[in-house]
Structure formats: C-alpha cells, structure tokens
C-alpha cells in the first residue's frame, strides 16, 4: 500500500499534488485547476437558491474535510448489497481509491472495458478523452460539480463496444470509511450503439457519526443509438453523510435507459438526476424507491429532458417516511422546441408513517413544443386506515401490517425492474432496512 500523500485540504496545491501523483496528462491537470478556480469563485449554495430551497448546507464546513488518499482505508469496505444470479464484472472503490476491478475474460475479449477512470486514460485514451474534455456534467453547473471536476480520484469507467450484448450484470461499489472525509466519486459509462448492458452502482458506508462526511459525486452516462442500459443506483450511507451528486444520462436515437434509484441512506442527500433524450425515439424509465428514517433528508431533482421528437419518458418515484425523515422531490419535464410527439409521464407518491415526517413534492413542466403528451401527479398521504384494520384483523401487528402495506406500495416500482433476481434482492434489502424501524403511527 502506498504511503499517505500529505494533503492540506481542498486547495490548489492538493489538486496539483494529486494530479502529478496520478501521472495525469497536462490537459487534464489544467482542467482540474480551472475547475478548482471555478469552485472557489462560486458561493456555497444557500436556501435562497431555488434549487436549494429545502436543503440546508450550513452544517457542512468544507474547510474541515480531509482527503484520505493512500491511507489504506481500502480494507474497510463493506460487502456489496446488490446481488444477482451472477456478475460479469465487479469494481470496488474505497473512498476515491480503487480496491479491485474484475471483468470476465470473455467480456474482455469482446472489448468491454471496466476499470478505474484513471487507468482508462492510460489504456484507452482515444475512447475516454473525448468524454473528459467535453463532459456531460460540466464544472460550470455548480459549486459541487466544480469541486468534483477538480478532485475526482480513481473514478469508475465502463465501456461496452457497439453491438455487444453483455449477458451478465456488472456492479460497482463506492464505500466511504473515514469520518470527516471528502470523497469525489466519478463514473463514466459509455454504451456503444446497439449494445446492451445491466449495471448496478452502490454507495455505502458504515455509520460515520460525528463531524460531517462528504461524498460529492458525478455520474455521466452515454447510451448510444439503439443501445439499452438498465441501471440500479443504490445509496446506503449511514451516519452524518452529505451526499451531493449530479447524474446525467445522454440518450442517442432509439436508445433505452431503465434507471432505478434506491435511497436507503441516513444522511443528507441532494441528487440531481437528469436524463436528456437527444436522439429521436429514445425512451427512459426513471424509477425511485426511498425509505426515509431517522433524520434523513433527501432532495431529489429529476429532469426528463426531451430534446428530440418521438421520445418517451416515464418516471415513478415512491417514498415512505418514518421518524423525522424529510423528502423533497422536484420533478421537471422539459420539452424543447421541435420535440414534438413527446410522451412524458411523471408520478411521485409518498406515504407518511409518523407525525414528524414530511414530504414536499413539486412537479414542474416546461413545454415549448406542440403535439406533446405530458402528465404528472404527486401525492402525499397516510397509510389507509381500512387497509391497516383489514391486515390487523388477521393477526398482524400495527407495525408489521404497516410495513406490509408499504412493501406493497413499493412493489409497483420493483415490478418495473426487468430482472427477477434484482427485484428479489432489492425487496429483501428494503425489507431488512424497514425492520430496523418500528411503525407506531
């Protein structure tokens, strides 16, 4: 294990040191330094910013964070929760460092690349560089995107060559291990034209109590023409973790993205999840399951971005909140000029299981094209008293009956997940997680 590089914190010297240590090309170092300057010039988001209206960052002091690189934290990574009947490849990151990356031999022979982003720059520069020099998530988007662009570490890279059908799913884990640390995960997925792949990405940590820990991630997804990507993103950060991330998918003509986001973590999450349909005939299914407990605060901003005609997007996010959990869901549908024949649907449903939990949904439509169909709906409610009585009359305690109703409520989302093994796995995970709390209300 390498000895720890002495880092003073989130400053310019650190950017330089890290970049040199990684032996990065000059152009990339320049990009990082520019991003750092941008980060410094931007104010910390505050609640007067429309996008941060309901999420308070005053508890997060960026100057107090450390970057634990080369410090041997790799061993502390917890086992992965995402399961399937088998995997074609697996990648594990501890904080910002690669622990291991495995890929089945036949997939390697087919030209699939699944490794750290840093290694990909060395191995397949011609594939990676265009995406890094013209990133889907630009540093200019905001303070945390700039921060990530300056400090991202090993990164995750997946490339599936055109017309390649990856039979077994691939999965990656980003594990946090150190209290008070800052981690900058960055994922780049490139699915070639006509290719097909299933990918699961998991963010997890043991309980990191005390001073805040930060994960400021960026995920960029490129789905080629006619390609199909089925993706699960699971977050289970425990303790006082701030997870501030921006995830952007770009869909080419006639491609498909099925994306399930599962939130089981405990801290403060602010997640921008954007799917841009850039080619005609693209379609996306965006699904979410959120189990909110303790003092969890989750703020999802989704965007169904219709830039081309004849595209379809269908979003269904469901949440159940107990204890003092708060969820914010800001769902936007944007239909650009010329994106006619758009078919877009959005629904956000939340069940409240305690007096102190609260949900704030806000749908938002911007339509500049004609001949489009857009529907949206949001609801926040309690468990139905008659359903509860019905189940209890068969001997189920209030707690068990409530959770059974919530499980049933989530099932509609799980049923949209194509792989049965993934459904079963997530159902078990969510059940196990729900068993940790007791429904009283």
């Amino acid at each position, binding site marked *: 294990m390498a000895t720890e590089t002495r880092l003073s914190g989130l400053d310019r010297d650190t950017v330089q040191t890290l970049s040199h240590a990684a032996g990065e090309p000059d152009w990339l170092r320049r990009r990082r330094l520019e991003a750092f300057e941008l980060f410094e010039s931007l104010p910390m988001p505050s609640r007067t910013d429309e996008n941060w209206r309901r999420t308070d960052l005053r508890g997060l002091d960026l100057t107090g964070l450390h970057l634990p690189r080369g410090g041997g934290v790799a061993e502390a990574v917890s086992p992965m929760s995402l399961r399937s009947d088998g995997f074609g490849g697996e990648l594990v990151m501890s904080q910002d460092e690669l622990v291991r990356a495995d890929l089945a031999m036949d997939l390697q022979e087919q030209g699939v690349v699944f490794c750290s982003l840093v290694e990909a720059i060395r191995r397949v520069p011609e594939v990676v560089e265009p995406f890094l020099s013209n990133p889907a998530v630009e540093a200019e988007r905001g303070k945390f995107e700039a921060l990530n662009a300056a400090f991202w570490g090993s990164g995750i890279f997946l490339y599936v060559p055109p017309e390649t059908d990856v039979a077994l799913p691939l999965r990656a884990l980003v594990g946090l291990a150190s209290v008070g640390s800052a981690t900058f995960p960055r994922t780049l997925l490139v699915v070639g034209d006509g290719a097909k792949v299933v990918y699961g990405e998991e963010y997890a940590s043991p309980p990191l109590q005390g001073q805040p820990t930060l994960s400021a991630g960026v995920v960029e997804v490129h789905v080629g023409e006619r390609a199909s990507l089925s993706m699960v993103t699971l977050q289970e950060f425990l303790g006082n973790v701030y997870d501030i991330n921006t995830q952007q998918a770009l869909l080419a003509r006639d491609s498909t993205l099925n994306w399930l986001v599962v939130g089981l973590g405990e801290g403060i999450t602010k997640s921008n999840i954007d799917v841009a349909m850039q080619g005609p005939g693209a379609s996306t299914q965006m699904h979410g399951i959120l189990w909110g407990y303790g003092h969890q605060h989750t703020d999802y901003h989704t965007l169904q971005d219709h830039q081309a005609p004849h595209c379809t997007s269908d979003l269904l996010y469901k949440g159940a909140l107990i204890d003092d959990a708060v969820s914010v869901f800001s769902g936007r549908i944007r239909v650009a000029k010329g994106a006619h024949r758009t078919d877009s649907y959005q629904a956000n449903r939340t069940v409240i299981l305690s007096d102190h939990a609260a949900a704030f949904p806000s749908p938002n439509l911007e339509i500049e094209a004609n001949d489009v169909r857009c529907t949206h709906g949001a609801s926040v409610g309690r468990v139905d008293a008659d*359903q509860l009585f019905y189940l*209890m009359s*068969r*001997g*189920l*305690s*209030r707690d068990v009956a409530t959770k*059974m109703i919530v499980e049933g409520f*989530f*099932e509609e989302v799980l049923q949209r997940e194509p792989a049965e093994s993934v459904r079963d796995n997530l159902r078990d995970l969510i059940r196990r997680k729900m068993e940790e709390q007791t429904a009283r209300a």
Partner: protein
Amino acid sequence: MSRDSIDSFPSQAISHEECVGAMSNLLEIRDLHVNIEDREIVKGIDLVVNRGEVHAVMGPNGSGKSTLASTLMGHPFYTVTRGQVLFDGKDVADLSADERAKLGMFLAFQYPHSVPGVTVANFLRTAVNSVLGPENKMPPAQFRALLREKLALLKMDDSMAGRYINEGFSGGEKKRAEILQMAMLQPKLAVMDETDSGLDIDALRVVADGVNSLLGPDLGVLLITHYQRLLNYIKPDFVHVMVDGRIVASGGPELAQELERDGYAGFIEKALVAV
C-alpha cells in the same frame, strides 16, 4: 310461532355468575352501545354465542349489523360508549384488532379491502405465523401444503395465492378469499358479514361447503345475512332480527323463513313503538 312468543323467547343470556366455575361463553355481548362520531348506531345489544353454535343476524340495510361486526373486531373508528364484549370470558375492550385475532376472533368482511402489491400467499403466511405466535411458526412446506388444501376446498385456482390481496378480484372471488383466510387461520369465532352477497348459486354452495367443513364443537359463528338462501346451506341454531341498532326478536331457523315471507315491516313497526 307467533311474533309475541318470539319476542318472549328467552335469549341465551346466562348471567355471568352462573358461568363461574364452568367454561365461559365463547362470545358474550352485554348491553353494547356503539357510536360513529356522535351518532349512536348500536343501541344496546345482548347476545351470547357458544362454541358449536351458529347464530344468524338478519336486519334491514343500515340497522347496524356491520357496525356490530366491526366493533367486535376492534375497528378504531367505532366507539363503544356502553356495555362490554367478552371473548372466552375476557373483556376485549382494550385489545387491538390483531390481539383479538390472536385470541381466535375472525371477521369475514362485507367489503374486503384490497392491498396492492401484497400477495395473498405472503399475507397469509405472515397472518398464520402471527396467530400461531413466534414459538409455533409453521414450516414453509407445511404452510404451502395447507394453503393448497384450503384453496382446493374453496375451489380456488392455485394462482390466486400469487395475486395481490383482493386487487381486481370479482365480488365472488373476494368472498371466497375471505373464507380461505378463515380456513387458514382456524378461528374460534367467525363473524361473517354478508359473505353470501354477490355469490352465484354455485359459488354460494362452495362457500357454504367450505364453512360447513370448518364447523365443529369448538367454533362459534355469527352469520350476518339478508337471505334465507344461505341458511338453507348453513343451518343456524338461532336467528336474531336486528332493527335500528337493537335485536328486536330472536328465535330458531323458522324465524328466517318467516322474515323471507313477510319482510321486516312488522319488526320495524314494533321497534318504532318500543322507542
């Protein structure tokens, strides 16, 4: 039998003192008054159901039959303002619905609720194990065998077990599913609220056969119905007429036939006079 003699038919109310030392009544309802919000719906009911007995309760729409049934099961929406419900000699006032179920009480709902996303099998496995208690959990293989047996008893397709609870069930399927649940849970007291409504002739026979197969010296049944038809299949030992929140007459099976012939008019008049 004349109506007057029916009115004077001694109810089964054995006073509590007489029970001391003996096995207590299965269900004993004493002067029960129930409110929905501020309105009194059940206005003083006394009724005793013993093990092995089938009691039919008949009465016009809105007379409070379902209110009585839900109250027996402990629905929090209904407020008991006076009186008592004793099950196996124990006052159940402070017990929630699940605790009553664990004692052996069961309600077949007039309008069973649907629970999307929860399969009948998953629900019943949880219910059976809740009622059996943590020490007596049923092994999964035994549960599956029992479920298959009871599905067959009610002539229900095995695929029903994988469907979501009452979701998209036809009226008749819902009623069968209620009796399936009863058969799985093997209660000591079954309150059946219009289980016959919405069933075609064949389904009625299947459901009645199912119920009859569960009857025995240990099971007490309270059968709420509008129709004599059901009572041709499930023979009641006693028939009670409920009007405006009270039992205004009790008798044997012949009372049901009389109601079928003459309707409730006479009883309603009487109830009005009594007020």
